[in-house]
């Protein structure tokens, strides 16, 4: 049985032809010379939520970390092909990864607030980017409001972030990312460590944020992808001459992927036959 896509969501979402924010051309990621993900070419669009789904090991996390040069942190990783962000190859010689991350923010699977106060967590990004001291209060409030966390914490901004629940911490991480006013927000399995209620809160948040930001999420939860995303990219592992390489199998509007996929493997994955 193919996953039901809630009718309300189908109505609201239109596949608007908007500008491509990312254009990947023949992107390949290698670890110590061994390809982990290969031959990926597709475009991601503005003000849309694009979901990367697929079985474990298919490279979806690896790929999303290319979009903000976080793969640089892994010494043995190398990227070939072109990752174009609004026309600029992020892996070009003249590109500074620090600049990239100011425009393309990231939220991680396990909430990772700094061991500081809620205020200092959200203010960290603006501070290191040189924001004026008297603008911080306003930035912090604005970001916490956008992350649907302000009401819950406005009276205890100076308390330690570790005192919050998992769901609140993740929303704090989102607020933190929003504070630097990025263009794109990448989310690597943002709700997989959270309980169902917090997950629902995060998903609602995503649907609000997409009006102002472009969002890419990696999720192993197909229903989540069906619930929130405009477009879905399905990845799978190819056994390429004995080696496991992740490849993009199908990329289409979410409704298509879940109700009428073209590729047999996509059909099998979304109907739960494997993965």
């Amino acid at each position: 049985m193919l996953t039901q896509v809630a009718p309300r969501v189908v109505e609201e979402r239109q596949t608007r032809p908007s500008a491509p924010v990312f254009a990947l051309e023949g992107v390949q990621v290698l670890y110590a010379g061994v390809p982990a993900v290969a031959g990926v070419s597709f475009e991601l669009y503005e003000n849309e939520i694009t979901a990367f789904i697929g079985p474990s090991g298919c490279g979806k996390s690896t790929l999303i970390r290319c979009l903000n040069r976080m793969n640089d942190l892994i010494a043995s990783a190398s990227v070939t092909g072109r990752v174009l962000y609004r026309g600029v190859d992020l892996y070009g010689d003249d590109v500074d990864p620090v600049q990239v991350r100011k425009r393309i923010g990231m939220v991680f699977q396990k909430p990772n607030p700094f061991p500081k106060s809620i205020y200092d967590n959200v203010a960290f990004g603006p501070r290191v980017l040189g924001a004026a001291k008297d603008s911080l209060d306003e930035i912090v409030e604005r970001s916490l409001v956008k992350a649907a966390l302000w009401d819950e914490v406005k009276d205890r901004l100076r308390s330690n972030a570790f005192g919050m629940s998992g769901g609140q911490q993740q929303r704090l991480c989102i607020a933190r990312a929003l504070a630097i006013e990025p263009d794109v927000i990448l989310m690597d399995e943002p709700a997989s460590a959270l309980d169902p209620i917090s997950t629902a809160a995060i998903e609602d948040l995503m649907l609000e944020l997409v009006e102002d930001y472009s969002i890419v999420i990696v999720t192993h939860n197909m229903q989540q992808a069906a619930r929130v995303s405009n477009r879905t990219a399905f990845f799978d592992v190819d056994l390429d001459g004995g080696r496991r390489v992740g490849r993009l199998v199908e990329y289409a509007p979410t409704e298509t992927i879940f109700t009428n996929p073209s590729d047999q493997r996509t059909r099998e994955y979304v109907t739960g036959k494997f993965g």
Partner: protein
Amino acid sequence: MATAAAILGVPRRRRGEQAIKGLLLLAALLSVLTTAGIVVALVEETVSFFGEVALTDFVTGTDWSPLFAEPSFGVLPLVTGTLLVSAIALAVATPIGLGAAVYLAEYASPRVRRAVKPVLELLAGVPTIVFGYFALLFFTPEVLEPLFGEPLQGFNALSAGVVMGFMIVPTIASVSEDAMSAVPAALREGAFGLGATKLQVATRVVFPAALSGVVASFVLGASRAIGETMIVLIAAGLQPNFTADPRKSVETMTTFVAATAKGDAAVGSVAYEAIFAVGTVLFVLTLLMNLLSIRFVRRYRQVYE
């Protein structure tokens, strides 16, 4: 094609960060500089020393009297002095340290461990001059003199050796205990499951499995004993007797260096250079022992981690 600058903004100048990276590297290189400094300091004067003293005289001579009008530089008394005191220390420290280690690793309840570990840590934190005081002014008069009577000199190797042994107990105990605790529980449980007693498990299963760590602790303890100065300086006197009799006073390599550096040897004299020659022997010896113990530690860590 859009330019990186237009889309991503111009990166802020961060030349300061490059300078910081350089400073950090320099700080790390200081360690290499220190070792180089030690080597250069030692080698330079040692070479001068052997310009005036024949190597064979040094290595095989049994008369060490560098400050006499007709000096003699046979280093053997210093070596035997060092070995005598160290051997006594290890004879004391090894059984006590190993016993404590086995007890802590295999027998002690968590509550007992919490009470005992501070004792060992305290022992490890006592400055060696305090041990020296204890050896000279308590151990010799109150313990050794009643036992040995007349033949015992006020300054003697035995007192320094025994007290030094207690100083080394924490070293042997902690490294051995670390090695024994690293032995997986599965090994013990297997033996218990076969009906072995605690004694048998401790001696036949855990101890052999932790052997390389135990050896490492011994070598480390020996290295500390050889390099120790104050206990011997205070309690063993400064007579370079070429002897194996622990009741006599001895001079070790370390106490010779300390006493001569403090004393009247003129800079540039052979006696002054002797400081560095003996220092070289000390440095090389302890270096080799430390490298050896690191090897052994690596071996037991590798097996279980």
